[in-house]
């Protein structure tokens, strides 16, 4: 599983690359997928959340390595596809792109502040949805609206949940002093 740490070179070395406890990334991803599948059974309105997306964004922003970010996004997206009826690759492609973009942005900006996290998550949610709609329209010939009120609400709600979820996920980080 993708769980190593990579240093950034050149002008980006001033931004900290976070390392996580062993198995933390895999455990968080699986936990998010299970909760995503379970919550709507008991709370139907909870289907507005996309926890696997939030986990992809978080680890992308924290690890700041585009290659590992996009691969993590691919794995989470394909697993999400497997647990839904969407064709395998739909969420895979969307989360691959999100993983890559989040890692790339994370390597350039300090994304630790809650406001930055809120804004970035809302933007990533929109991008994620945009990619899905694009794939559905171009590859699957399924007409899908680019924007609905529900999507706007979902973007805000997911961003809000992300602020608190990211604080929880921060606890999975190894202390900075333990870097080799």
């Amino acid at each position: 599983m993708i769980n190593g740490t990579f240093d950034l070179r050149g002008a980006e070395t001033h931004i900290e690359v976070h390392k996580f406890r062993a198995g933390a990334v895999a455990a968080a991803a699986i936990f998010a997928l299970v909760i995503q599948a379970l919550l709507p059974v008991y709370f139907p309105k909870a289907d507005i959340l996309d926890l696997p997306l939030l986990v992809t964004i978080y680890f992308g922003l924290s690890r700041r390595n585009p290659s590992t970010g996009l691969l993590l996004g691919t794995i989470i997206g394909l697993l999400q596809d497997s647990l839904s009826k969407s064709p395998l690759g739909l969420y895979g492609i969307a989360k691959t792109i999100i993983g890559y973009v989040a890692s790339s942005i994370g390597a350039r900006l300090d994304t630790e502040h809650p406001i930055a996290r809120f804004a970035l998550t809302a933007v990533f949610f929109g991008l994620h949805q945009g990619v899905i709609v694009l794939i559905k329209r171009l590859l699957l010939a399924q007409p899908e609206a680019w924007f609905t009120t529900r999507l706007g609400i979902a973007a805000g709600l997911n961003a809000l949940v992300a602020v608190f979820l990211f604080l929880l996920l921060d606890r999975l980080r190894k202390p900075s002093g333990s870097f080799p």
Partner: protein
Amino acid sequence: MVAIPSRHKSLVLLAGVVIVQMLFLAVQIKRDSQGRLIRSWTVGAISPFERTGAWGFGRIRGIWIHYFALQNTSRENENLRRENDALKLQLDQLRSKAAEADRLAPLINFRQLNRNVPMLGARVIGASADTASHTIFLDRGEREGVRRNMAVITPDGVVGKIIEAFPNSAQVLLLTDKEGGVGALLADSRIQKPVGGTGEPLLVMKYVPNDETVNAGDRVITSGMDRIFPKDLPVGTVTEVKPGNPFKLIRVRPAANLERLEEVIVLLTLHPLELRKEPESRVSDAAEKTASEQPPTAKP
């Protein structure tokens, strides 16, 4: 130490991964009828967690209800005792009505008349992991005889059909999904048209010409023409009728509560079910009784 991929390399990797998945998508579209191994593996790996989670949720809810949510219990207890006395009186009246309702309920009739039809109770252990589709996972699978395209119902009405059967679990496409649907007819006018999902809580009845008369409150039942659902099961009730172009826009509220499913029944047969006809006199008596007990329905 792992070698650091350059920015250029990661872009190439991104393009490669996306292209592979796009090819993967294309292959699936051509071969959608075949089972997908990765889907089976993933569901097999995740469903134990879902079972555990469902069990855990049940326990936590039980603990919460029985131990923590006990504020004002004493006061409520006194009120409930008083209510209990009144309810005992009503109970005898309701018992006689319940017995009558049992005789009339279509689903009970269905079960009584089709004892030879194998049915299986199943528990809902998960929902779709994506936000757009309306599917659920059941804790019964191929080992219990569940197969693709089997009908799933509740005592209230039609739920959906099995779209994937795994060894220990199965995925159900709900009627409310955009790809969900059922052959249906209006119970009174006998207009026979498909009812499908829209991704919203309400269903739509399609292709009904504008010159047909449909009213809010009309009951919608299965027609049996889809060869999945047996005839005469409740699908829902018409809630809204609007003229459209070229067909009426008819919204239907599902009879089963598809947003809060915990237990369902899987009809373990892939053959069209033929309901045995009741004697005419019983049917007409039952219809009259049902009509007399129906609450007044709202008109648009």
